Every structure is written in structure tokens, then in C-alpha cells.
């Protein structure tokens, strides 16, 4: 492929940064649960968001295996059904590998619209698993979560791509 003039090239993603961002997302989820909202439905799931981001941007590094692992961790933390989040994250990561080549051709807001169905599917799988085991639907507020996650997608994209946008050869004028 011939690079057009003026097109920016990204630095390679640091595996340590990927791991740190995933752990931070897990911490953020826990903080929302422990300090801010308790067990309210409709709270955005940052871990799903960051997992989806890395599955789209680095499909060779983060894919279904890690999604499954972080799903199990979330299940244990939330005292949910063991395997509930694991299933929903795995399916979400699979759908992300299907669209990851196409998605990056769009700008932020249209990307957000395209990842919204993925979050919806992930949450719908969770709801179905719970309905099948005899729990009731947590209420209409639960629908807010996928919408918020999709709305946060452009923000997270800018934040997590920032380290890769640094200059490859930093000098006096361009320290970063």
C-alpha cells in the first residue's frame, strides 16, 4: 500500500501499556461498584470498552482468550453467575474481530455507532443468561449501559491511542 503524503504513522503498541490499561479499566469498574453506584444497573462497563478497543486495534495481542479471562474475573468480583461475563465478552470480542478491518476506516462518532450493536449483544447475552436462571430483568435503566459505552468509545480511542501517536524520534522541539 502506498502511504499518502502527510499521513501519520503510529508507534507499535507497548504490551505493558495494554496490560496496564486493561487492569486500570478493571480497577475503574471496581471503583464504580465499591464507591460510587453500588449495584445500580446501567453503569458503563469500562473493561468491556477497553477490551473491545484492543481487540479492534491489536487483534494479534488481545483477543478472545483474554476476553474470556477478564470475563471470569468480573464474574467472581460481581458475584454473578460464573461464566456470564466470560460468554458475553467472548462473543463481543469475536464480533470485533469480524469488523476490525472495516471499523478503522471511519471517524470517531460513526465508529461509536458501529460498536453500539456489539455492546448491545454483550449485555443482551448477560440478560438472557440471568433470565434463563430465574432472575428478573434489572429494569429499563440497564439499557443505558450499552449506550454510555458506545458514547465513550471516541474518548477511549483518543486516550488509548495517544501513546502510539508520540513522535518516533523525539527532539528538543517535540519532546513527546
Amino acid at each position, binding site marked *: 500500500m502506498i502511504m499518502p503524503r502527510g499521513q501519520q504513522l503510529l508507534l507499535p503498541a507497548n504490551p505493558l501499556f495494554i496490560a496496564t490499561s486493561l487492569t486500570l479499566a478493571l480497577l475503574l469498574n471496581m471503583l464504580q461498584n465499591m464507591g460510587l453506584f453500588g449495584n445500580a444497573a446501567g453503569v458503563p462497563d469500562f473493561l468491556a470498552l477497553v477490551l473491545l478497543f484492543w481487540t479492534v486495534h491489536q487483534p494479534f495481542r488481545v*483477543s478472545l482468550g483474554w476476553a*474470556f479471562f477478564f470475563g471470569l474475573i468480573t464474574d467472581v468480583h460481581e458475584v454473578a453467575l460464573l461464566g456470564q461475563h466470560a460468554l458475553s465478552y467472548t462473543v463481543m470480542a469475536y464480533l470485533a474481530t469480524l469488523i476490525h478491518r472495516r471499523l478503522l476506516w471511519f471517524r470517531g462518532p460513526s465508529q461509536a455507532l458501529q460498536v453500539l450493536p456489539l455492546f448491545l449483544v454483550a449485555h443482551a447475552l448477560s440478560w438472557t443468561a440471568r433470565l434463563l436462571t430465574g432472575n428478573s430483568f434489572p429494569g429499563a435503566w440497564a439499557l443505558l449501559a450499552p449506550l454510555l459505552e458506545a458514547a465513550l468509545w471516541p474518548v477511549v480511542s483518543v486516550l488509548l491511542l495517544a501513546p502510539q501517536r508520540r513522535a518516533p524520534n523525539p527532539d528538543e522541539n517535540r519532546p513527546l
Partner: protein
Amino acid sequence: MPLGTLDRSPPPFFKQGPTPLTKLLFFGALSLLLMVADVRWGVTQPMRSALSVVLYPVQWLAQRPVVVADKTGDFLQDRETAQRNEQLARTQLLAQAARAGQVDQLTLENQQLRSLLALRERSGITAQAAQVLYDAADPYTRKMILDKGSLQGIQAGAPVMDDAGVLGQVTRVYPLVSELTLITNREHSVPVLNTRTGVRGVAFGEASGAPLLELRYLASNADVEVGDVLSTSGVDGVFPPGMPVAKVVKVERRSESVFARILCEPLARVQAAQHVMVVDPVGAEWPQRPPAERVAPPSRKGGPR
């Protein structure tokens, strides 16, 4: 167009591992298996324990900002609030002191009467204090996580109470933390006794998820009034008798139903408990339950044996 990456090594062309579809089928089947194992067979406890130990440092770290915020809030509390709280604590202490005096005398009297009648001694309560780490994030259930686990001697099934009444029961024990199911959880039930009339019943968590209890299976003409206090009856062999549980807030007697619909409000702070007591279950000292007689299935008449 997508931004290219300045990777130092080319992406693998041929060694790409299993396809995403294979991985999806594998991990999807694995999580379905885990869910069935969790719900039907109940064999996932060792796995949960191991993962919870791995998770504990992360949880501890996530807890820090909350703890700091709480401490700052306590520090910045104004003088009037502190004085009001102290006033409240003093009045409560006075009320309790009067009762405590009575209780000492009544315990002695009870002991003598029981020995006169040659009844079994009432077993004492042993308990240990614990702190609530956080509310479980699962919006479908009412559970809390306590900061003590099997290493500190917490047993599964142990009743938990706060200063006002019964809060729930420990349902899962991990090495470092344990899981408390609140009495308002729809899958939880407590055998209770109406302290006004002495009628026994069973209080279940409200099905709609409101923080209420429902006293089920009482006839629609049963003597229950708004304001009645329910306490544990002690017939279950888990909860010690006489712990306050709930107060009746609504009695609905419907003509089309045999049973009255009785809603009760828990006395314990099920929404905002912080410090709790984990009481050892009382059933361990009880005499063994007689083994259930195995009834032979009736042989079909004339059928081949």
C-alpha cells in the same frame, strides 16, 4: 482511512493460531459449561476461591480511594453533626442499659427455671466482628462482600447481624473474603416469630427486588398487624432465637387468595451496613436429626420385577 502502524516485525502470515470462530466455539462452550456447573452442579467453588485470591490485591487497591474519601469525610464533618451523633449514641446507651439490667436478671431466672424443669441449656452465642467491603455489583441479587474469610474462621451458613437486627447469611466463603446474602434477596428465607402473638412463619425476600421481606403462607385471617416486630424463631438450627428481623409495614387481605400478603421492613440497615457481626450457626451443638427413613418404592402390581 486507518492509521498504519510502524511495527518492527511483520504480522504473522501463516502461523495465526486457531481461527476466531474456533476460539469462539471453544470459549463459548467453556463458559456455557461453567454456567451450568455453577447453577446445576454447584462445583465451581474451588475455581471461584482461586480467582478471588488472585483478585484480592486488585480489590484492595480499588478500595483505597473509597477509604480515603470516607476518612476525609469523617475528618471534615462539622461539630454539630458530631455532637448530635454523640447525643444519639448516649440515648441509645441509656435505653440499652435499662434493658441490659433486666436481661441479666431474666437470664438468671431463666437458667434456674430451666434447670428446675430439666430442659436443655440455651446455647450462648459466639460471634466475630467484620466489615462490609462492598455491595456485589450484580444488579440482579442483593449480596455484600465481607472482609473476613475461611482463614479467620468464617463458616458458610453463618447468620450475620448488625446493631439493629438480622442482616443475612454467609453463603460462600473464600480464603480472604466471604459473601453475605441479604435477607431481602429473593432466594433467601428466615424462619421468624411474631413477638406479639408468638405465631411462627417464614419471611422471604421480596420478589420484585425492593428492600422488603414478605411473610408468606399465613392465612388471610391470621392475627398480624402493622407494626408487629418479627424475630428469629430459632427452629431452623442456624439463626439463634430472638434476634430482631423485621417490622410489618403492610398487610393485604385479599378475598381471592387463601394467604394474606404481608410486607415487612428489615430492621437491619440492609442498604448501608458497614460493621457487622458474624454469628456462629447454633445448629452444631444440637442433637443429631434422626435419619430419614428410606421408604421402599411401592412395587407395581403384577409388573415384572
